[in-house]
Each structure stands twice: as C-alpha cells, then as structure tokens.
C-alpha cells in the first residue's frame, strides 16, 4: 500500500493563511493608531537625571499630568549635554489641554476642574531638566493655587546595573 502512495507523488498539506494575514494587518493598523493617540498625551522632553535617585514607580491610579514642554529639538542635538538647551518653556499641557507658557490662570482653572472630577487623582509635574527654575516655580504656584499641596516630580528611574549618571559636576 505504501509504495502506491509514493507512486502518485508526495502530498503537500498547506494551510490557508490568507485570513490570518488579514487579521494580523488589521491588528497592526489598530495598534499603530492607538499608539499615536496615547503618545500625544506625553510631551517629548528629557526629564531630570538624578544622582542616586530615590524615585519610585508611578502608580497606575488616576493621575493628572502637568507637562512643561521645552522648545522643539532633535534627539541628536541634546545627546551630549541635555542641559545645554533653551531654558524657556514652549507651552504647558494639563491632561490633554494645552496652554501658553504664561497662561497660569488657565492652568489653575484646568486643575480645579480636573480635581473636582477626580478628587483622588495625583498631580504629576513633568518638566524638562533644562528648564529654568524661574519657569517651573510659577507653574508650581499655579498648582498650589488650585488647592493642591502635594505633587509628584518626574525624573528618570535608576538604571539597573548601570553606573550612576553624574551631571552638574
């Protein structure tokens, strides 16, 4: 019997993969779109790099992110010394609302709204490490005027196994 089969030639079982490819393409398009929407919430910046950081991970619980955005830059131009950069803010973003850098009343109002909608949410201040304290401090003032006295400052987590980054020495 077995020799009969070999006389007819080998059989090639093949799966039809076309629907699989269709679904995979759909998933790729879906995730690309979702990723774009998510990344729009966090502004591109280099947050402070600390000596021996005591930073802890952000909780997944509700948070209101206040971004103080620096001027536009390409990654390469700040690779050597991230602090050698324009210290003025370009805009301030609270959640998805964008304000001019000097519109502190708008920031306070947005935070009051957000706080009344989500009373348990924590406020996270995300500022570029190169910005001047004279730019960041008024924003902290705007946060306190919204009745918030606790804020989480964003910095890089310690690198696992890497030597501590020494900057400002």
């Amino acid at each position, binding site marked *: 019997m077995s020799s009969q089969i*070999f006389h007819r030639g080998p059989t090639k079982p093949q799966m039809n993969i076309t629907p*699989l490819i269709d679904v995979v393409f759909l998933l790729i398009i879906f995730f690309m779109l979702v990723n774009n929407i998510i990344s729009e919430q966090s502004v591109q910046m280099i947050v402070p790099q600390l*000596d021996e950081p005591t930073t802890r991970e952000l909780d997944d619980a509700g948070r209101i992110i206040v971004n103080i955005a620096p001027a536009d830059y390409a990654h390469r131009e700040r690779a050597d010394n991230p602090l050698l950069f324009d210290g003025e803010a370009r805009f301030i973003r609270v959640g998805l609302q964008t304000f001019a850098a000097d519109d502190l009343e708008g920031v306070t109002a947005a935070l009051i709204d957000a706080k009344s909608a989500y009373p348990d949410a924590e406020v996270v201040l995300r500022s570029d490490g190169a910005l001047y304290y004279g730019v960041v401090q008024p924003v902290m003032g705007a946060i306190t005027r919204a009745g918030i006295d606790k804020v989480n400052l964003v910095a890089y987590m310690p690198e696992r196994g890497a030597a501590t980054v020494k900057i400002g020495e």
Partner: protein
Amino acid sequence: MQADQTVHHRSASKRHGRPKPSMQPNLSAMIDVIFLLLIYFVVTANFTPDEGVLTAKLPQGTGSPSQDMTPPQRPLNIVLSPAGETQVRISIQGYPQAPTGFADLAVLLTQLQYDPERGLHSGAFKPDSPVVIKPEAGVRWQHVANAFNAAVRARYTNINFAQVSQ
C-alpha cells in the same frame, strides 16, 4: 513481512532509491507575517529610560496653622545658584563647607541631622525639620530636582521649594 511493515518508511525509500518526500508545511507566509510583526515592534519600541516620581510638598503662601506649643523651627536652607551655562553652585546657608556635588550634599545633610535612632548625634536638625530649597531663577530644573532628591536621601521629610529669588 511483519517486521517489514513496522519500519516501512526507512525501508521503502531505501528500496525504491528515491529521496524522502517532503511533508513540510509552507512556512514562507508565516515568516512574512513574523517579519511584519518584528518591524512593527522595532518601530514602535520605546527606547527611552523609565520615568519615576518624587513626591513633594509645594510652597504654600498661607502656610500651615501655627502650633503654639512648639518653638518655631529653624529651616535648613539649600541655596542653588547658576554657574556658567549648565552647572550649579550648591551651598547650605550658615555652613562654610560647600558641597561639591549632589551626592556630597546628601552626605552633608545626613551629617547635619540629629536622629538617635540612626546613630546620628552630630547634627542640629531633626528629620522633620523644614528643609527649604532656594534656587535662583536661572538654575536648571534638573539641579533643583537633584537637590530635592539629596534631601530625600538624607531622610528629611519636610522639604519645600522657595519662591524664585532673583
């Protein structure tokens, strides 16, 4: 005959002198898809380091209600002033010894602390004494966050940011 049937695969191909027929599924379509997924994940991968947070108290104009029973505590002032374009000069008000960097600042702040539980008897500041970080307007935010981090590492619990001093 019986023995021939049990090993018929090997013996059949040997007998007929023909190569073994390939019974492999066509993998090229799967490889196509895997390459697409690989490219997708490489493109969307996030190579930036993880970010964490330091929880801070903000400067309050009104301040907390005064406690009549306890004498007012002398704050420990950390003054930061810009040095050059990106550097910073650190000093602790009232102490001649200027820290050379933020790791050194954390060591000095620990020496200034009085906490018998940790074996620290030399300092005059308790862990809950107010620590005020006083940066000038032109100091980069990274140095301010670094000074805050140093005070946290020295286990102070009441750290504040001062208003901008020009």
